[in-house]
């Protein structure tokens, strides 16, 4: 009996079931061509797996702290859920009552820590740059009368880094003004993005109030672990 190559593939991938599988295995016992085709297929699958088996992501310095951060986050969550949950809720309710609160709930992740936000910009888009800074100013304004105040970080990677570059940012003056006016706002440039530019022979010329930090993903994960709200612009 002839089997299509799709069926032979399906057998090799463990996708054949019941009667089809029994029929295939019966034919396999006597059909040497089928055996050869199947062997070739297994060999190809093995070659593919081997060709990429040692592909590893670049090493990150922060990896060794992961366990500590997750453990700290677990402790924090327990504290939040047992003690601080209701007060946190109250503050958020106060925020939600104002029309000025511009945060789209769908764009937020985890808000166990009231007043702690990390905004993330990853595209070179003037409208998004403006939106990021508007969002930051709006949050700062909303929290100015809240006791605990606000801590805000804006992290940029990939194309978003241009927001923080002296000669590329249409909002360089605004970034500086925000840094000078609010000590509780921090602008962070992703170390990967900086490295990428340097690899291309481009000096990032960051605005002097911008910090060079960890990679964007590490910073976001760290803050999410700590219960900050994450907002992707």
């Amino acid at each position, binding site marked *: 009996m002839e089997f299509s190559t799709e069926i032979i593939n399906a057998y090799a991938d463990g996708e054949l079931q019941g009667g089809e599988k029994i029929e295939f295995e019966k034919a396999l016992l006597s059909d040497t061509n089928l055996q050869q085709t199947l062997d070739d297929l297994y060999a190809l699958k093995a070659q*593919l797996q081997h060709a990429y088996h040692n592909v590893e*992501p670049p090493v990150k310095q922060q990896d060794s702290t992961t366990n500590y951060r997750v453990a700290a986050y*677990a402790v924090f969550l327990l504290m939040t859920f047992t003690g601080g949950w209701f007060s946190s809720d109250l503050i958020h309710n106060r925020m939600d009552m104002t029309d000025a609160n511009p945060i789209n709930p769908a764009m937020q*992740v985890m808000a166990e820590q009231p007043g702690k936000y990390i905004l993330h910009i990853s595209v070179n888009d003037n409208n998004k740059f403006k939106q990021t800074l508007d969002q930051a100013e709006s949050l700062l304004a909303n929290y100015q009368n809240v006791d605990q105040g606000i801590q805000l970080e804006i992290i940029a990677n990939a194309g978003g880094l241009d927001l923080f570059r002296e000669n590329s940012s249409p909002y360089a003056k605004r970034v500086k003004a925000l840094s000078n006016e609010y000590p509780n706002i921090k602008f962070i440039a992703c170390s990967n993005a900086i490295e990428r530019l340097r690899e291309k022979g481009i000096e990032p010329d960051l605005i002097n109030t911008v910090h060079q930090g960890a990679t964007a993903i590490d910073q976001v994960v760290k803050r999410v672990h700590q219960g900050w709200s*994450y907002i992707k612009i």
Partner: protein
Amino acid sequence: MNIFKLACRKVALVRRIESSRPKLYRMAYAWSHDAMLADDLVQETQMLALQKIEQLKDEAAFDGWVYTILNNVWLGYLRKSRPSEDIEKIVIADNNTPEHEMLVSQVDLMVRSAMTGLPNAQRQVVSLVDLDGLSYSEVASVLQIPIGTVMSRLNRARGALGKSIKKNRLEQQNKTHVAFKAQENNADNILRVVK
């Protein structure tokens, strides 16, 4: 689910997203064959996963869920960087540098080279099935295509890979043969001079 369990589940998911970096990177690399781009794609994927963490209802579907995000990020990148091309048919550059070649065996290089020649749609299917062992239905869900399409793309991909690897191997054997002959001739010439 009580609050304690909810908190533990969230911690476990954040941890799982973070620890999925190696497998996501391997897949992103197999699709793009560009180390820096793969790192960026994975970073974007992990961030989106964190952002959408509440959307994952069934933890057993975690792998399919993160690969779906990776696929969306990858397709978004292709749409932006190569807007005039049909995404399904895009082939990628074979970026093997001399450094790469020292670290990767000849056979692996041949296989990777063959992968770069596949249209994107086929490269994605064969990577998901063979590098991470996803089932056909999982691949169909990740790439949002029917299972029949998964099967036909896989079939074409493996056929093309088999042919390309065989051709490359023959070329390599010929090169080795020519180099060996040249060495033999040189040795003969030296012997003649010595005599």
